[in-house]
């Protein structure tokens, strides 16, 4: 009776691993933006005060430059970048407008508590061309948010403050439980920053945006504790296949 049955044995499930959920989100956002013709660029995590602060119009007296917010190294000669903006600065210096760059990567702040980590990830983008306005920026932000949260998501723009953009905005999305959650910062590139990068602000204007990937990942995957991303627990990582 059994001899005519084809015995293959039990099915073999191939053991596969998984992308880290933060990098998965990073790649998917970069993909959306590069399909809009933004060029992906990279830069060093160890930076100078000049590129991390001065060129971005973050003045010496700005609170972010204090020792409690920034990790300094090499007897204050260098620092661990506090945002990915210096990558854009370097690329603006090396290229002539029009230009459109995005960069994603690790950034560092001197923080360590239940909601802040000393290292986290950002994606930032910049587009410099003639006649770029806040109305254009809004269009781009809608596209980014829709690609992440779907076109039914409700969002709002709020005035905010960043030394490198003016006007500046923060963008909130409406969560399932009816609360506004901040997901993104953006603005019109401050003409001072363009000048610092040898771009004539009379001819060109620009838009810029930045978002923290942990925050997006926490919202998308409903992860409650930001620290879970960096425990390297296989029970955690295995869920993101």
């Amino acid at each position, binding site marked *: 009776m059994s001899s005519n049955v084809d015995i293959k044995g039990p099915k073999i499930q191939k053991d596969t691993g998984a992308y880290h959920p933060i990098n998965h989100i990073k790649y998917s956002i970069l993909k959306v933006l590069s399909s809009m013709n933004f060029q992906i660029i990279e830069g060093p995590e160890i930076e100078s005060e000049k590129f991390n602060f001065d060129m971005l119009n973050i003045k010496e007296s700005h609170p972010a430059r204090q020792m409690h917010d920034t990790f300094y*190294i090499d007897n204050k000669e260098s620092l661990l970048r506090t945002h990915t903006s210096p990558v854009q600065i370097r690329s603006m210096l090396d290229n002539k407008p029009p230009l459109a760059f995005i960069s994603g990567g690790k950034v560092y702040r001197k923080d360590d508590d239940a909601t802040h980590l000393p290292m986290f990830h950002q994606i930032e983008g910049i587009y410099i061309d003639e006649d770029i306005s806040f109305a254009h920026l809004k269009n781009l932000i809608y596209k980014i948010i829709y690609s992440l949260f779907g076109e039914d998501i409700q969002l709002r723009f709020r005035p905010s403050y960043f030394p490198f953009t003016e006007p500046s905005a923060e963008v909130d999305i409406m969560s399932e439980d009816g609360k506004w959650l901040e997901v993104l910062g953006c603005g*019109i590139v401050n003409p001072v920053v363009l000048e610092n990068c040898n771009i004539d602000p009379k001819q060109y204007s620009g838009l810029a945006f930045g978002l923290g990937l942990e925050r997006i990942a926490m919202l998308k995957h409903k992860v409650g504790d930001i620290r879970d991303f960096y425990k390297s627990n296989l029970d955690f990582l295995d869920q993101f296949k």
Partner: protein
Amino acid sequence: MKLSYRHLVKHIVQKPTITELSAKLFQLGHEHEIQDEILDIEFTPNRGDCLSIKGLLRDLSAFYSVEFDMPTYDKPIDSLKIKFKNKCRKMCPKISFLKIEIEDNIQDYKSNLKTYFEDLNNKPINFFTDVSNFVAYETGQPTHAYDASIFNNQVILKEISDSYEFTTLLNDKILLTDKNNVFFAENEIINLAGIIGGKKSACNKETKTAIIECAYFLPDAIIGKTIKYDINSEAAYKFERGVDPESQDFVLRRFINIVKDHVKIKNLQICTYDYTTTLPIKIPFNTNEINKILGTDISDKKFKDILSSLNFVCNEKCIEVPSYRNDVKTQNDLAEEIARVIGYDNIEVKSLSVPILNNQSNESYEQNIKGFLIDNGFFEVINFPFVSQSDKTSIKVDNPLDSNKGYLRTDLEKSLLNNLLFNERRQKEIIKLFEISDVYNYKKGQISKKKKLALIATGRVAKNHKDFSKKLTSEFLESILIDLIPQHLLSFKKINRDNLDTKLKNEIFFLEVDYDEINTSIHKYSANSKPPKEYIEYKPISELPSSNRDISFSIKDFSKLNKLEEIINGFKNDILKEKFVFDYFHNKKNNEIKLGYRFVFQSKVKTLTDSEINIVLNDIIMEILKLESVNIPGFKQ
């Protein structure tokens, strides 16, 4: 900053509800929370001018008719003669002193001073200090109340650079180091300028004659001090963000008026030391430029109306910025003012398309490498770069979070080994991890960056009947990675367990290579395992121990094998975490299949007992034994 709704709305003609007011505050960029009619507002650091009832009302006057109900003392005041020297004219270009003598001590507070303490849960200290705090809340200008007797001596405002011990009015002892601006009298520091007063010169409940100092300190004179000395100072918070140099007369006259409401004043004298030279900021009137920045089409009239509502003085050629708006200097700043009042959400979107400029990227290359490793069972991890130990080339962090995080890692081995041991302690039988990261060290005195790929693995080959009995070997790992890593670099090292805090004996394999050395042929690799399209809802994991149960099934009718797998795969229970076939044997002699199943149990809430596990296991077994010709050798019902 906490502001009371009723203190605000008192001055607004339209009397908006708190919900209406809240919506307008968000539109203006003042993020806040509301509790019991108190608005807790997080002002952006450029808006120091908003840090008071008056300041916020000035911003709200874009939407409402605001009638300030803050009466001031309007009679002439005699001039005050004190022995004061300002040796910090650059950092403090304007300073006033008001001497005020009262007849009696005050028992009860009235009107707004009373509700200020009630509504905002503030604790009264003494009359002059309380009025000072209230006036700062109302006007945004900090003042400091001294007991007047200290001014019998010479008082000097100067910069010191030596170390001094200073006792604050809260009786905290602070060691001042490096450069500080201080008020000095009788060879002692009586006030850490713009931050906190000293104990020696402070007012108390019996004080009847006080000198009120009202100063304009530049933000640079104050920034960083409260953090350096761990002081909580509302005054410093305001000075750091910029106060209005033109407000001193109004503020001190308001101060007098509040005192007058409570007690008879016997004597008033005032003096001002003014070294300011700054002229009001003027920006060319250019609506086109504003429309260009915003992508809007607003008229000259609308532009003017909005700015006028915010107290900007507009004429045909230029716009004069109010003295308290130290954040407005350029056309872009004006554009933000216009956008806030119109509402960011009301600016119409204009379609944006970025031209093709240069579309090469290397991210897909990195994704191919990762895809290859993931197809082969490796999980990607990301680690912090901070380590406790250094080698000769390590870069030191000047201000680490703690001494165990004082250096930047120069390779990925320690991080990955920690990740591996962490998972071993959680009873993981197969651990395969990788990380791609930049590492930094010194090379010939210069900071050098290298991008690395590192892999670590231990335990069994895979969770299936063919591989579970096999342990990982370097030969096996090297055989699967041959397409990724060039032969001459493909040599896993075994990490010695002798110095590790573990009793396990499985060999640990580690390999680190320069990212640049990876085979470029991987460019063309197309990964089988793609990241999920939909975002997966994460289920919190358990930190409690797990238990394994192995069961061996015997099957005579081979056609039942699929059915058996189907039943087990379909079986779901909260404490059944995982199940897989770890052993399979076809006994041709007996015409029988032996199937070894491993069941892993773990609860999120408790350590499981045998009987709790057995109840679930029994359910599975009973279901399986309904299949004809399937039995469990040695199992008795």
